[in-house]
């Protein structure tokens, strides 16, 4: 089966999450044009399939913004390392009923560990590991309790950018403490 045949239906389905189905086919075709044009630039850092789907998502987002069913923008701007949750935690686009749904629900967190010093230390450590601006935004908003307007003014960034940074920071910190909070061993 050719590359196109193998992926096209899944791409149309995935595009259907962003645009009305009448348009999804068009979007998938636009994406293929993007793939052909860009193939010489593919560096092999991700799998070919992931790269093709990335192009598809970009096309779908762009169209989606103009259609009624757009997913809010800040949800869409992320590459693999910025994902709040690793891709493999979700059912892939080929799942027949629930693509994009949790493959397994996250384990509930222990209330005991919620109030422990270890957890506090882990959060502090996770924040230290963040890129500078993400750390700054989370520190000012969540630790120091500044309003978003105050943070935007202090760091001279837009409201939307502030939210994206806050989102990435919080997501990374949550990920860092998740194994321990759901009952794993303390590091």
């Amino acid at each position, binding site marked *: 089966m050719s590359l196109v045949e193998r992926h096209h239906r899944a791409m149309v389905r995935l595009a259907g999450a962003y645009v009305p189905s009448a348009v999804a086919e068009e979007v998938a075709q636009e994406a293929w044009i993007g793939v052909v044009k860009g193939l010489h630039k593919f560096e092999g850092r991700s799998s070919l399939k992931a790269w093709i789907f990335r192009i598809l998502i970009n096309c779908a987002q762009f169209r989606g913004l103009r259609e009624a069913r757009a997913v809010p923008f800040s949800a869409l701007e992320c590459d693999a390392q910025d994902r709040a949750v690793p891709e493999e935690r979700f059912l892939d686009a080929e799942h027949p009923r629930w693509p994009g749904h949790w493959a397994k629900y996250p384990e509930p967190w222990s209330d005991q560990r919620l109030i422990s010093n270890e957890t506090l230390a882990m959060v502090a450590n996770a924040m230290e590991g963040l890129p500078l601006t993400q750390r700054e935004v989370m520190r000012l908003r969540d*630790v120091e309790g500044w309003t978003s307007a105050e943070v935007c003014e202090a760091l001279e960034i837009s409201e939307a950018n502030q939210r994206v940074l806050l989102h990435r920071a919080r997501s990374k910190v949550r990920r860092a403490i998740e194994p321990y909070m759901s009952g794993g061993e303390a590091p």
Partner: protein
Amino acid sequence: MSNEASMDITCQELVELVTDYLEGALSHEDRTRFEQHLVMCGGCKEYLREMRKTIAISRKLSDEDLPANVRDDLLALFRKWKAGSLR
């Protein structure tokens, strides 16, 4: 047969929208879709709870709130990590 897509957002989309939701930045329509998804997805309900708990824990890192002995314990643990007992 055309297949009209669902209006539902996926869990994968939801986890990227959580901050917008908590900030009140979603439109009325998007907020409704977000909450409708929560109603029928225990996994995402749990994820939102975890995000709120993460924020609540972060609040406690503010110097003013920490009693001195807790802060000292924290700094000690933190230095241990930095010294390389993790990763």
